[in-house]
């Protein structure tokens, strides 16, 4: 049988961490994506400008560079803020934040994929016919009701393929957090491989876990697509 030299349980914990990381960042990415898409479709120019800047800049820079920037730069930025608070309050406010790699990882991945999600959702919102929204308003629905009952369910059908793609890329991007020192399964496998000097027996199981995750995701998205396409004829 596979001999992991006693590293099995810790790599398993790393896998759990990877999954937590992926789901939390997905949550942030979807929220930011909805915000970004509404910004892009907004009638207010500053909002449009801001969300276009966000999606263009983020999608033009490698994930790893952004992660380094947020992880290393974030600590200095927070220190500057807490120092300023300490000095202006004459020492009354004395707080210290340590940027923890997990939070930095979730924030960064969520922030990056929020930009990709914005583009996906923007296209999907535009695919919902204007008449539907007008009909909703004519029924006296509030803005939130129109969004929740009319836009969102119809938008999701158009957004699902893009959403599925983004999720697959996000899942694989989580491997990068190993570089900023977070003990995910890649990080633990690398440590083990260097110690035992047997790279394949550690990297192959990790690769298989990723493969399993992407395969399951694909299946889930196929089911979701069926669910959201109810009542739509496809030629």
């Amino acid at each position: 049988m596979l001999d992991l030299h006693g590293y099995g349980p810790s790599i398993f914990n790393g896998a759990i961490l990877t999954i937590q990381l992926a789901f939390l960042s997905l949550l942030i990415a979807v929220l930011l994506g909805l915000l970004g898409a509404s910004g892009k479709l907004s009638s207010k120019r500053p909002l449009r400008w801001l969300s276009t800047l966000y999606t263009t800049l983020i999608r033009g820079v490698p994930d790893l560079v952004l992660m380094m920037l947020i992880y290393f730069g974030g600590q200095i930025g927070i220190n500057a803020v807490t120092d300023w608070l300490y000095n202006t309050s004459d020492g009354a406010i004395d707080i210290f934040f340590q940027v923890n790699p997990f939070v930095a990882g979730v924030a960064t991945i969520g922030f990056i994929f929020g930009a990709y999600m914005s583009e996906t959702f923007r296209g999907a919102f535009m695919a919902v016919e204007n008449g539907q929204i007008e009909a909703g308003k004519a029924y006296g629905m509030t803005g939130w009701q129109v969004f929740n009952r009319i836009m969102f369910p119809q938008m999701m059908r158009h957004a699902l393929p893009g959403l599925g793609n983004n999720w697959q890329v996000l899942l694989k991007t989580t491997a990068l957090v190993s570089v900023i020192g977070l003990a995910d399964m890649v990080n633990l496998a690398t440590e083990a491989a260097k110690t035992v000097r047997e790279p394949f027996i550690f990297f192959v199981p990790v690769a298989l876990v990723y493969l399993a995750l992407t395969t399951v995701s694909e299946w889930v998205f196929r089911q979701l697509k069926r669910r959201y396409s109810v009542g739509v004829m496809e030629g």
Partner: protein
Amino acid sequence: MDAILALLENNDIFNPTTLAHYWDGLVNTVQLVFLSLVLGLVLAVPLAIMRTSKKPWINWPVWCFTYVFRGTPLLIQLYMIYYGVTLIDGIQESVFWVIFERAFYPCLIAFTLNTAAYTTEIFRGAIEATPRGEIEAAKAYGMSAAKRMRRIVLPSAFRRAIPAYSNEVVFMLHSSAIASTVTIIDLTGAARDIYARFYAPFQAYIFAALIYLCLTFTIFYIFKQLEKRMLGHLRPR
């Protein structure tokens, strides 16, 4: 020019030495990305043709290859090739050590295989989207399967693949940042060195990010021009 020189003299971080370091990083990044894209493209064309085959023993191995390389992170693939090769017993005494001594080649192999897998699937989609009538017409002219592929299917498939392929090129540029994790001084590696030297993460990484941004826009611009030339007949008028 004077303004630039004055700026260079008035800050501690961006002096000629560090700028030269960034330049070396940029050269490494461009070299790595360009070579892996060219090699990946060369591999992807025959693989895509095999992937569209109806014979399972031709189709299936290629499917396995793209499935594994698209389903796992590039970082893992890089680590497997980099650590996997360098930790093999006796490799350091063998003739192959000349190639694997520098991290450059393991990295190039990993990037090439990864982009080849994605490009294969892009081309497969483009080949399968060939209008049926074109193939029937080619058959009616008595063209052999090879000639049909060469003259009819591939030229139009390449054109159709351009938009998706431009995304893959940018994706590869961004993925190449992980080369810095296996001791290669690429653009990200240079930024990390300068961050470590001056403890100035914002300046060090934002400077690198701006260069990446310029590269990304350049790639998009080139592909837009290419699309205009090659896909002009498909533009809505």
